[in-house]
């Protein structure tokens, strides 16, 4: 497989771009694998890559029911940040951000990670106090964070609505190292890098059943036939939105997860307008916006508020998000929407994920990413691979287990309580 470089671009340019080879194989399923990852989204692909790259694992398959990166990998707003405060989340997301910072080099694939700053608007003294606590916690634990006063914010983002009597902007909490990345490139980059290390990525291969031999998984049934797992074989689930269905296939009962629908939107392309990620959340509003490299304004808001497996949105959420957009950036009032999409996600009882062992000896779970799966994907793959390779959780993810509700160690970043739809 060729390595991408400035020289390869130059050379292929001279040859009329005819000699590029496909970035990864479209593998056929074999009858037997040592490690099976279900779900070729960002988390599954990252897991397969780090299993091969960090732990030297071989004979790995990633099974995908649709096409690579066609689930939530392609249904997000591409925001990367680490402004989490709770123990457990803090070191995990910081590790993820550090992986993002070197990801293009690591994968030899330009994921277009742009550290353009993440600006959370503050509207009340209470919000500023809470942000001071959160961002000081970040600074004390190896990350970056700043509080901006109104003048600094106006210099950076001059065209926000600063004339709102009901929700006046008084400043902002900023993480400069945060930003956005190109979501497809992340999926493709991990896929290519994993493929180069021998991982089979098998598309159009839906898992339809999980065959157990006592407390072990012995095979997975797929739409392309059964795939056996050896005695030392392992299975990892990374199927956001459909975790409960796979869990039921394994005969394991209930999970602290509900599947909810989140929409996102992109407008027609505009000339450069917004250089940062801006987040607006006050008085029930929840809105985040950035501008893509093609110029489209990419934004999203809250869930659709009812449980759903349908990967399509509903109109009240569209209206809600559009109202947020025009209240914070009135200049967008005449801009037309180009596209909107809906993804289904695992909303958990405390808004935090699971990277853990399961009641079955060789089944491992990666689930419950709520809103935050995109930014988490490198660290999620990193620690999930570590868990599967060593059969024990690293200390950082020790509390990302299914037992934490029983032990009373909920990682409730939002303080919303056990109602999945509230953890936005």
């Amino acid at each position, binding site marked *: 497989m060729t390595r991408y470089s400035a020289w390869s671009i130059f050379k292929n340019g001279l040859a009329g771009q005819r000699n590029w080879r496909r970035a990864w194989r479209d593998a056929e399923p074999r009858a037997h694998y040592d490690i099976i990852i279900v779900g070729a989204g960002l988390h599954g692909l990252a897991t397969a890559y780090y299993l091969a790259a960090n732990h030297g694992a071989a004979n790995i398959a990633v099974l995908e029911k649709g096409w690579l990166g066609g689930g939530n990998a392609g249904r997000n707003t591409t925001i990367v940040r680490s402004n989490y405060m709770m123990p457990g989340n803090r070191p995990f997301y910081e590790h993820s951000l550090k992986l993002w910072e070197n990801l293009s080099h690591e994968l030899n694939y330009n994921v277009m990670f742009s550290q353009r700053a993440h600006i959370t608007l503050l509207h009340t003294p209470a919000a500023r106090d809470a942000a001071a606590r959160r961002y000081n916690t970040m600074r004390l634990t190896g990350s970056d964070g700043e509080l901006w006063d109104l003048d600094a914010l106006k210099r950076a983002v001059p065209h926000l609505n600063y004339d709102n009597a009901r929700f006046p902007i008084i400043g902002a909490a900023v993480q400069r190292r945060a930003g956005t990345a190109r979501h497809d490139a992340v999926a493709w980059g991990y896929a290519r890098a994993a493929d180069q290390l021998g991982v089979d990525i098998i598309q159009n291969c839906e898992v339809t059943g999980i065959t157990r031999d006592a407390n072990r998984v012995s095979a997975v049934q797929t739409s392309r036939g059964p795939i056996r797992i050896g005695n030392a074989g392992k299975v990892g689930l990374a199927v956001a939105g*459909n975790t*409960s*269905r796979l869990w039921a296939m394994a005969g394991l*009962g*209930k*999970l*602290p*997860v*509900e*599947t909810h629908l989140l929409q996102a939107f992109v407008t027609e392309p505009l000339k450069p307008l917004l250089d940062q990620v801006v987040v607006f959340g006050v008085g029930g509003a929840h809105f985040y916006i950035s501008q893509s490299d093609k110029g489209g304004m990419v934004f999203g808001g809250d869930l659709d*508020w*009812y*449980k*759903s*497996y*349908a990967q399509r949105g*509903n*109109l*009240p959420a569209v209206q809600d998000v559009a109202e947020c957009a025009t209240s914070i950036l009135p200049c967008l009032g005449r801009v037309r929407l180009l596209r909107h999409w809906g993804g289904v996600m695992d909303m958990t*009882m405390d808004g935090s994920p699971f990277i853990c062992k399961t009641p079955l000896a060789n089944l491992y779970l990666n689930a419950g990413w709520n809103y935050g799966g995109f930014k988490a994907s490198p660290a999620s793959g990193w620690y999930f691979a570590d868990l599967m390779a060593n059969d024990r959780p690293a200390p950082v993810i020790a509390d990302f287990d299914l037992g934490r*509700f*029983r032990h009373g160690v909920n990682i409730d970043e939002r303080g919303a309580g*056990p*109602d*999945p*739809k509230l953890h936005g």
Partner: protein
Amino acid sequence: MIRIPCPFCGERDHSEFAYGKDASVQYPPLDAPLEDWHEAVFLRDNIRGVQLETWQHLHGCRQWLVVERDTATHHIHSVRAAHPGVAAVLAGAGNDAGSGK
């Protein structure tokens, strides 16, 4: 847009309603074992298909309803009043709307 046939007000857009939660969840007695409470508070079947759920007609009659809805297609199969007494009165009055059909 999902349209919910409220037994009291007739068919309305779901934006008039507030989603409650999975209506199959039954809280155990207060002195039940911790495990029962753990299951009721934290664990869900998370059905892909027809499930029972509660909705409140917040911008209408403000009644709580039990809605039988398909979580994959959003099709509504039935609606009834959540309060068993109110549901019984509606049914006793021969009011077809009580079943949401």
